[in-house]
């Protein structure tokens, strides 16, 4: 079901309501993501950042409201539309969510096998390409997820989400649990990939450095809805939570290092 979304907006959320039992997480949430931007979603624990991500990619049904991704009505996708849409986005879950019984290369080949017909050697080549592009050593391709460190698993997960060269990349806390050096490398990697592949990135994070380093706009989940704007705008905002978030000791430290 194609709806009339303007070409510039790739994700459009209108009036989203999410409830768990009697607890309301989102109440009339609106969000627009433009093509080619990196949008960071932040919020306190339990404010529904990951729930928002899961709802936008269709893993959770919204209780009300509409979600439009690349012109598709996500909550009401038919089977063929879902397949078409799945080829156009990539998702990186928190710990990579690699299939533990497959090697890294086989993990990357899963979407290729599922969606395209391709000779075996070419698939190996493309998998090796993706391994290289996320900055993993070549030998990683034949390793199993259990043989990798947390940072490498995330990179491998990113390689799998890039397998079909998606237009939108969803990242759930990509730098959580990484040491500062690995986290900074990962930020740089996202920036490089965005530049070279023209990605739109939807990023859920707690990492202030990541926000300051790579996000074009930031969406803050407060009071069951969202306040979206550039970092400069948020720094001016006098909402107590937003103020505490960006002007707390960690916020100030991140600002000064990324000036």
């Amino acid at each position, binding site marked *: 079901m194609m709806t009339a979304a303007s070409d510039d907006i790739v994700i459009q959320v209108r009036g989203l309501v999410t409830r768990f039992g009697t607890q309301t997480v989102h109440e009339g949430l609106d969000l627009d993501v433009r093509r080619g931007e990196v949008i960071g979603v932040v919020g306190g624990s339990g404010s529904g950042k990951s729930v928002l991500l899961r709802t936008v990619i269709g893993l959770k049904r919204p209780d009300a409201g509409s979600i439009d991704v690349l012109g598709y009505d996500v909550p009401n996708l038919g089977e063929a539309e879902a397949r078409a849409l799945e080829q156009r986005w990539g998702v990186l879950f928190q710990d990579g969510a690699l299939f533990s019984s497959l090697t890294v290369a086989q993990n990357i080949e899963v979407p290729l096998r599922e969606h395209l017909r391709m000779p075996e050697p070419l698939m*190996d080549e493309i998998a090796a390409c993706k391994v*290289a592009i996320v900055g993993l050593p070549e030998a990683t391709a034949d390793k199993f997820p259990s043989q990798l460190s947390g940072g490498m698993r995330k990179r491998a997960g990113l390689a799998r989400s890039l397998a079909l060269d998606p237009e939108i990349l969803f990242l759930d806390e990509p730098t959580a649990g990484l040491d500062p050096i690995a986290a900074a490398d990962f930020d740089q990697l996202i920036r490089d990939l965005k530049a070279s592949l023209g990605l739109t990135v939807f990023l859920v994070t707690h990492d202030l450095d990541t926000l300051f380093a790579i996000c074009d706009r930031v969406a803050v989940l407060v009071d069951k809805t969202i306040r979206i704007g550039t970092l400069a705008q948020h720094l001016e905002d006098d909402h107590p939570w937003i103020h505490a978030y960006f002007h707390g000791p960690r916020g100030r430290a991140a600002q000064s290092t990324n000036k």
Partner: protein
Amino acid sequence: MAPPATIVASEESGALIMRAEGSWLVTSAAELDRRLHALDLPSDRRVTLDLAGVDRLDTAGAWLLLRTEHALSARGNRVALTNVRESFTPLLEQLRARSGVEPLPHPIPPHHTLIGFVARIGEITIMLGHRVYTMLGFAGLVSANFAQLFWRPRRLRVIATLVQMEQAGLDAMPIVGLLSFLIGVVMAYQGADQLRRFGAEIYTVNLLGVAILRELGVLLTAIIIAGRSGSAFTAQIGTMQVNQEIDALRTLGLEPVEVLVLPRVFGLVLTLPLLVFYADAMGLLGGALMSWSTLGISLPRFLEQLRGAITEWTLWVGVIKAPFFAAIIAMIGCYEGFNVTGSAESVGRLTTQSVVESIFVVIVADAAFSILFSLLKI
């Protein structure tokens, strides 16, 4: 729809020009790959890869271009990429910088060769020896902790033991009872069928008495408990291992064996004999019911025949094995639980392994008991 991706070669003033056109995307990569392999690559020439006609490019397309460029250079050609759109440059640069020329050949898994096969047998043998060694070590650790209880009996966790007895014993009664009852029914039915040919139906009772009391009751119960409680022990302790709860216990000055293993071993050792007794009774009940309905042997006659067929030792021979089987099941279950390393996946693997191992060891122990009893002429 995007124009299909193609590559066309043509001669122009002494140079070979290869024109790439269309959308070089992952969706058309298979077709492009076929075309590129079909191309006749020249040697020692000037070759121009003209990308003027390429309107879209992704990683797969860029890889195919770079691969072609590599292949041409490798044949001694001087290659130039021309008319590259500005928006494609970062991608090409990044791929060129990061990727190797050739993809890795997948190494053949070593056990697919004969030497690998032999080596694997050797590895497994050594691993098996190592397992037996560490398992004995674990049994020793548990025994040492057990021995300490004699001069510090207050360290036995009575409530935890009672909880284990409830979970492993009381909660298992429906399934153990039902299965024993059904086995009694089946045995009586099959036995009667065979013995009727000799006109010796009444000996069905002897068959039931001896088989259920000596072997089947205890073995069946032990196997059910291995599947039910042994696996639960591995899963519980394994999950605690994943959550670092075991480490937390140690840092709080608690001995994991004392807190987790002893209550489980005690609980099972005390419960299994009772369960076996109950399973024996249910098995005989099933047999009696079947004998009455198909052979017309009344309950008093059944009991009279049974009294002639068995001695009290027939019962004891079965029940006496139960605490040993219980200790085996509980220790293997706990031991495998402690073997869990980090991942949730290893909890599943070791749970399966613990059930298989404990059933195996229980049956081996049962065979050992048979030999012992025949030497003792019981």
